Each structure stands twice: as C-alpha cells, then as structure tokens.
C-alpha cells in the first residue's frame, strides 16, 4: 500500500479525536478507501484493545504472553486484509474487529500450540520492573481473576472482557454481542454482582 493521503489534514484531526464514534466511523471510511494514514491510525487505535483482550482470554503460557500477542498480531493482520471488503452496515467497527478476534482466539484454544518460549534479550541497563515476588503475586491475582471470569455465564464473561479489558463502550459491546446498550448495563451489573459474590466466597473459604 503506497497511497498518498489526500485527506492528510483530516486524518491528523482524526488521530487526535479517534475516540469519538463519528470520528471513528470517518476514520474507518478513509481506511477502507485505502488511505494509508487512516489505516495506520485505525490499526493503532484497535491494536491495544485487541492485545489486552487476547491476553485476558488466552492467559500466559510459561509465564509469558507470547501466544496471546501472536494471536493479537494475527487479528490485526486479518483486519488489515479484510479492510477493503468491510462495509459499514450500521454496526461499529469494533464489532468487526472483535468478531475476528473471537475466531482467532477460538482457533488458538483449539490448537493449543506450545511454541518456543522466547528468551530475554541481553540487558542493557537497570531493570525497573517489579521484583520476582511482586511479579508472582500479580500473576496469581490475575489468574484468580480469570478463574472467576470462567465461572460466569459465557455472555457475561464476554461482556466483562469487552467492557473492562478491551475498553469498548456499552453500545459497542452491545453490537458485538447482539444486545442493546441498556441490556449491556443490566448484564454488566449482574456480572459484577456475581463476581463479587464468588470472590467473597473464595475469601471466606
């Protein structure tokens, strides 16, 4: 893709205002039309959400997120490839993206490939990351949260992941799951209440 951006000024404005739904729709339209700048901004917008979502769904393998990150990369590539065929049918672009993500994650869970674990690169300075004890505690707490989520009904679990981890709005989440925004708010309330109850039961136990 080497299309110059005829709407470079508009893309610059959209880069700053990409969280607004209308601006995102405009950005998507430009990206579908092949505008390189718009494509870059759009992928940059969805990539962090996809990474977090894949990490939350797939978890760590041998202490690392390399499989989840690989799946996230596949999702971004698939979105890029499918962009020319995307048609705005009134649903947010997030529905399109997370539909692809769900399929890729399902494929990854089915294959459950244990790839080679990448090693750390050579250190070139002081390590500012948390120490090993703090890291292990964080891993354990995160896995405990995932365990709680797996005990939710599937739709509530997906809803919490999309709303909290991926950061989608209630409207976007509703479009992905086939619900209204109001139904999302009711369901998220029930999901949080159920998580609260399960967490308290575990604490007592």
């Amino acid at each position, binding site marked *: 893709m080497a299309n110059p951006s005829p709407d470079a000024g508009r893309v610059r404005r959209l880069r700053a205002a990409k969280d607004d739904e209308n601006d995102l729709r405009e950005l998507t339209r430009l990206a579908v039309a092949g505008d390189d700048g718009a494509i870059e901004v759009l992928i940059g917008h969805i990539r962090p959400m996809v990474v977090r979502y894949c990490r939350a769904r797939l978890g760590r393998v041998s202490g690392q997120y390399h499989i989840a990150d690989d799946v996230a990369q596949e999702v*971004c590539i698939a979105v890029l490839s499918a962009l020319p065929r995307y048609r705005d049918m009134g649903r947010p672009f997030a529905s399109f993206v997370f539909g692809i993500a769900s399929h890729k994650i399902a494929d990854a869970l089915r294959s459950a490939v244990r790839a080679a674990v990448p090693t750390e690169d050579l250190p070139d300075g002081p390590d500012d990351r948390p120490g090993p004890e703090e890291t292990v505690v964080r891993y354990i707490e995160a896995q405990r949260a995932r365990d709680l989520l797996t005990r939710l009904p599937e739709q509530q679990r997906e809803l919490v992941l999309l709303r909290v981890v991926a950061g989608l709005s209630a409207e976007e989440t509703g479009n992905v799951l086939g619900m209204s925004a109001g139904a999302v708010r009711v369901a998220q309330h029930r999901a949080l209440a159920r998580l609260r109850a399960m967490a308290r039961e575990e604490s007592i136990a």
Partner: protein
Amino acid sequence: MTGRSPGAPDPAEPSHSGDAPAEPPTDPDLLRRTDAIIEALAARSAATEADEGDPAVQALRALLDDVDEPGGLRLIPGGVPGAPKSRRGRRTIVALGIVGAVLATTGVAAAGSGIIEQRRPAPAVAQGTPAGPGPSAPPAETVVERPRAKPRPAKRAARKTSRPNRRKASRKPPRDAITELRRRLENLLPTYRGPHGRGHRPRLP
C-alpha cells in the same frame, strides 16, 4: 389444550439462560453506579475508597495490571499506550551487533559476506589486494579477496584499504552499508541460540 405442568416456565415471563435463575429488576441507581465502576476500570482510572473494599473490582484490576504489562509485545511496535517503553529494540541491536562481530572474527560472516564481496566492481581488484586462500573463498574472478588467514588487525587494515573503493563503487553512506550488512547477516542466521539453548530469530526493530 393441555395444561402446563407444575414447575414449567411461564412463557409470559422473559426468557433467560438455563444456567442463570431469573433475577429481579435492578435499581437504576445501582446500574449507574456499576456503569461508573466499569467505565473507571476500562479507563484505568485510580481506585476509589469504595472500590478498595470491592473484591470484584480488585480482581479485575489485578487482571488489568497483568494484561497491560508492556513486555511481550515484541511483534507489535510501540507496545501498550501509556506503558513504559520497552528497551527490547536496543537490546536486539546490541545482541545482533555482538553476534555479527563474533561471526565476523570466526570467518562465517566472511563466507556469508562473500555475497557482498561478489558485487564489488573490478577496480577494487586492481588495487592489488592479495588473494587469500581459504576453503570458503568466493570465485576469484568476482572478488577482492581479503586475507582471511591473517589476524584481526590485518583484516581491519585490509578492510580499511578496501573501504574507500567500496564507498567509491557503491556511493552508499557508511550507515546504509552497515544496515544492509546487518540485514544480510540476519538472513544468514537461521536461529539465534540464547544462553538456555532456546531458539528465536533475532529481529531488527
């Protein structure tokens, strides 16, 4: 018409999933409160005092802290927005540079860099650089042979004498030549075995 058997669901009531009992209508204030909590989590806002005692919020925050970890996004440049930048790129360059230097001194890079040397134009041969014998010497008609058997300082001297010719011939800035050499070295190295013998291919940022 048959009567409904005792315990059968009332079709007039809203349907619900088999694994969740029917729940009473929810107070709108509670829905707004939960939505605010969800939005705060999604925005990665600081925890409030009320959230500190909520085990569900604590669990979700632990999950978010884990999936937002910047490490591991080796395939996705830029990492997670807002997270500290990884030094992995510079580490990769350092590692690749060290590997390249080691291979250059062992002669493996010399064999591989015969690809570069084969492209040297004839005037470099006229400089009178003596041809060196070696099992991996490229064809004589194409190359300026460096004295492979000589110790390192002599090789450096030979390279220095030939460097002006390469510059003259290729007219490339030294930085571009180094970048090209690095890329070719990368292609020649199928796998970089780290200290634990686990493989991964070195990548340039």
